[in-house]
């Protein structure tokens, strides 16, 4: 019996070996290298060997206004994006799941922006946020105003909102699909039992669907939180196209600028390690919460 288990374990290991190797080469090695480099001072184009500076890069970052501005910009963006994403993707999922016709079409329609390249999405939206673009026309129509420029790209708050809208539009469909899968995994018998007991549709949703979707909701909220912490493309494109950097200089953009523009690869590595720790913190929470909320039927 034991030898059979041993055999199974060996084969299991053989099957996961490619994935482990892939992870070591393309994830673990760069991460370790970045960690190692974060203790050095190195100009990206210099041929001189890197200079060991200990924790100096980390100390510099924690004393840097620019870094804390990036933490703030990332926090505002993450909070401003993941809350509406969780709420609306859940609503869209319930709406789609409750429909008898066009379910597949709606899933496809909601999901399609997620397939689009981030730069293409940012380009499309950047044009829409221009003074003569659709965003101003829409607001002028809603508020019944005459050609007011709502300054989507030249007002700090509107600029942050603009980046949130782009991200929300691109990824809400992706999380909707996850919720749809979660809703589909709830056995029909549970709903039927509730309806036999006299529950209406609202009560069925509130007392049956929502509690049973808790693990999916947690998964979506933590996943979207982690993804929003890693946001880059929209902010990068907007800044490249002339938008002011300070309100939307998220940590990833700061890492990029520090490495590529300022050529300070050690400092950029230290920043990426701090971002990794923040992400790991949220992942840890995800594991903790999802374990305590496992549901079995």
């Amino acid at each position, binding site marked *: 019996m034991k030898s059979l288990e041993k055999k199974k374990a060996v084969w299991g290991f053989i099957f996961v070996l490619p994935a482990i190797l892939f992870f070591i080469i393309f994830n673990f090695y760069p991460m370790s290298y970045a960690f190692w480099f974060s203790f050095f001072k190195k*100009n990206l184009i210099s041929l001189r060997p890197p200079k060991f500076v200990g924790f100096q890069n980390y100390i510099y970052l924690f004393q840097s206004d620019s870094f804390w501005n990036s933490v703030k910009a990332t926090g505002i963006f993450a909070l401003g994006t993941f809350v509406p994403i969780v709420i609306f993707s859940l609503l869209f999922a319930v709406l789609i799941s409750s429909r008898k016709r066009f379910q597949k079409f709606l899933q496809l329609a909601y999901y399609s922006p997620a397939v689009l390249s981030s730069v293409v999405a940012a380009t499309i939206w950047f044009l829409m946020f221009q003074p003569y673009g659709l965003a101003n026309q829409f607001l002028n129509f809603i508020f019944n105003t005459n050609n007011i420029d709502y300054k989507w*790209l030249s007002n700090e708050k509107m600029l942050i909102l603009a980046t949130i809208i782009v991200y929300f539009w691109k990824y809400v469909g992706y999380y909707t699909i996850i919720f749809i899968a979660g809703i589909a995994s709830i056995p029909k018998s549970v709903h039927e039992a509730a309806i036999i007991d006299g529950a209406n549709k609202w009560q069925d949703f509130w007392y049956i669907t929502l509690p049973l979707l808790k693990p999916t909701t947690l998964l979506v909220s933590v996943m979207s939180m982690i993804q929003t912490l890693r946001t880059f493309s929209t902010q990068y494109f907007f800044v490249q196209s002339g938008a002011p*950097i*300070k309100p939307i200089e998220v940590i990833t953009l700061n890492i990029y600028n520090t490495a590529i*523009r*300022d050529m300070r690869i050690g400092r950029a590595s230290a920043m990426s390690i701090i971002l990794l720790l923040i992400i790991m913190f949220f992942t840890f929470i995800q594991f903790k919460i999802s374990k305590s909320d496992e549901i079995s039927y």
Partner: protein
Amino acid sequence: MKKFLLILMLVFFTFLVYAAQIELVFWTHEDPNRTPLEEKYIQEFEKMYPNVKITRVTYPSKKISEVILTAFAASKGPDIFNMEIQNEYPYIVNGRVAPIDLEALDLKSFEELKKEYVEGALDPVTYDGEIYGLPLELTNWAVFVNKKYFREVGLDPDKDYPKTWEEMMEVSEKLVIRDGEILKRRGFDFRYPYYLTFFLPMVEQLGGKLISDDKKTAIVNDDAWLKVLKYMKEWGPNGKNLGSPTYTNARKLFNKDNNTVTMCLSGLYQIDRIRADNPEFYESGEWMIIPFPVFEDAVNDVRCNYYGHYYMVNAQSSKEKQYWAWKFISFMLSHPEDYLLNVGLVQPKISLINSEVFKNYPYADVFIKDMEKSHSVPLLINGPQFNQLIREAVESVMLTDTTPEEALKILKEKANELLKEEW
């Protein structure tokens, strides 16, 4: 046996041919008028030297510095490349580019090379007694004007064109067309984000400097910097809304002659781009070029900074490749009149500047007169970072609630920190 020997010899000779083949990779920025010209030179060069194969790859102007930096960081840089000199300078200082191979150019000394160029043209690429690049172009910007729109608002383009920055704002206000708050036509707009090129001279006109003469202080003369920052704030969407870094490039719209832009900043090469993009507008004679304006109370008559694009060779390429790379660059650049007539690029060669072709080139005199009053963009090891800091300051006053005083304070702190940083 005979067959076997024949195959063996064939394999051996094929190996020899491939071993002798020199493959050069050449990265440059996109320029639709330059591409056919340089592709032609590549073909001619490959015909002259069949052992050399050259692959030319283009990247957008805004992206090329990042692409090259990433490639060099990974020691995978191209054999030949060019960027604006302020971006190339750190490569010289850090030993990433090879000095010119005089043998490839059939020259005996660098002095002999210098004699071919106008005085000072090779100074930006001269370091520790050696020369590291050959100029593709030396460019300054002047103001392109659409005369039709001037007349439309009752202005005479030949008399009423803006000579000062104050007049530029005044004239632009007359030229703009608005639909409610939405700007439909701009009078003039700047060439964002090249702040070391156009913004710094505006500061210098008022007596300001980027770096003090003793090189110990950055951002000299607060009043000058403040005045220009205030000007930009007034120019931007939160001021008089005459232009913005977020609006479409003025020089791209200018060529279309579609009632969206009246004036823009650009180099001599823009003329050929107008011809390529909109031949009807080019032939109409409805455009002209005027000098870079100065402030009314300017203390220095400084015009738009000039910059150069220099062809350089990767120091990590083999010596043989370096030789052929310089030979090819020299071959390409031995056609300065073609570059002027087809692309509008001015190589600072004495033979070209003195030629009738150059003297008769439309508006060349405007650019040359401005260039006489201007100087090169500052060459600093961390030049791109200084440009970025100025960009942050200007764009924060134009596009956010930041006051010019706050922006200047941040700029001074960061610029001085950058200046003191050692590498």
